[in-house]
């Protein structure tokens, strides 16, 4: 899968993410999940006003135009916040794992939640830089799985 290269960071204690509950894929979200399988992060951009938004609705959240197109985000993001889950909510769930909410300085209006790889879960920090990535998730989808780019302070 493209986009999962770890750029030198250690996979360390990372556990798999295939146990869980898959998404229902809809007309509005099909393009996102298809691109995810290719390791690409797609968000909607309004053809009318240029605003970007997430998740995809087929409607621009800024001007409410229905003329939206997809744009790929390739730049690094920053961790808005995070949590490390220790609870085995499902019988076959591997724990612990870190999950992050990621924002992109060059893409205002876009925040994407995903797992975090490339560092010890407890080493994740608010503000740390991450690269876009994906990993195999539940069912037959690839889920956002960001890659830590720096040793946290």
């Amino acid at each position, binding site marked *: 899968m493209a986009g999962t290269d770890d750029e030198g960071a250690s996979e360390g204690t990372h556990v798999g993410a295939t146990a869980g*509950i898959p998404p229902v894929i809809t007309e509005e979200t099909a393009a996102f999940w298809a691109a995810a399988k290719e390791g690409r992060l797609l968000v909607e951009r309004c053809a009318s006003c240029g605003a970007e938004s997430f998740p995809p*609705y087929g409607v621009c959240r800024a001007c409410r135009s229905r003329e939206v197109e997809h744009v790929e985000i390739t730049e690094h993001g920053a961790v808005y*916040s995070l*949590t490390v889950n220790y*609870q085995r*909510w499902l019988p076959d769930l591997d724990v612990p794992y870190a999950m992050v909410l990621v924002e992109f300085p060059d893409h205002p209006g876009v925040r994407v*939640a995903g797992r975090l790889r490339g560092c010890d879960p*407890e080493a994740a920090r608010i503000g740390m830089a991450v690269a876009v990535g994906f990993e195999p998730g539940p069912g037959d989808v690839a*889920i956002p799985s960001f890659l830590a780019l720096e040793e946290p302070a």
Partner: protein
Amino acid sequence: MSAQICERRAVISGVGQSAIGRQVDRSGFALTIDAITAAVSDAGLALDDIDGLAMFPGGGKANLPGYANGNLYEVQDALRITTTWRQGQVEGMSLPFYGPAMAVATGQARHVVIWRTVKEGSAARGAGGRVAYGSTQPAAEGPLAWLLPIGMLSPVCQVAPYAARYMHDYGVSRDQLGWIPVTQRAHAALNPDAVYRTPLTIEDYLASRMISTPICLFDCDVPLDGSTAIVVSAAETVADLRAPVRIEAMAGVIDGRPSWEQWEDFGRVGYATAAAMWNRTTLRPSDVDAAQLYDGFTIEVIWWLEAMGFCGTGEGGAFVDGGARIGLGGQLPTNTWGGQLSGGRLHAGFGHTAEAVRQLRGEAGDRQVHDAEVVAVTNVGGYEAGAALLTRW
């Protein structure tokens, strides 16, 4: 105040509860009937007087293919709409009595019963532990489609990043947060119906296991079995009622993105609701004698304290530190029944509302707040929010 405050045409006339416990070996239906009959009797009414019914969740899950389509929250988010009233969504009631109050205020009914029945205690026990949110469905729909597949399998994981960000931004510590469950446990010790009544110490709190950082076991409410019913009546019927309580003001606003990962700043989730509520009354935060603040998680009490103006933004940690201000006899006795953290997860503001009514009537027993005349009730710290002031008749 130019707006018509039509909630003053409604009163809360009755509250009733079934047996409540971690496991009550009776059907949810039986518990529901117990609560409804108790609430109607508590109001001084008979079942034949009731002409309105509502339950939570309204509609519930569709049980036929194609029966339900779309999700209110997604429509609201996509079209960027601020709502001051909603109905028809699983958690689409800002407060349990919100819709019923509108119904009696506009003459559509005189006495409405609304109830909430949970069997989450037995369900968790039967499954060997609390299971993933949404695991009753084979795949995640709507806003959950972005959360469950990545492993955000519980509201604990969903609220946790916002708690982490808030604590990071304001320097609030777990040593401070722990005083909320510790103080509420002390209140629960005075409530015979509370689920957990044995003392909890700050050391117990700090030693408890992490669920999803920074949320530990004692930051989470307690699943239980039980039912709560509330009767809402038209104010013109007060002569027929045993002990009505006034609805001074109420509001429920969503002014951010209604999703667990997109809401800009969960610490602010109650601000617009609180502002709208205070705009409907001349009472001020300093007039409030006790507060029943939604506490699915400890952090939500902090956010409600700040949103309601009981302290400033970022000051919630200092406000609860040591427990004196939020304890019985303190500046703002909070969750005097033990809250959902120790009283148990009666959910959706039903337990909080029942306690507010009992305090205002002077029927709260050993945990009675002296001369309680004004009690605040807030509901839900997810992206729903509701707030009200109830006052003595």
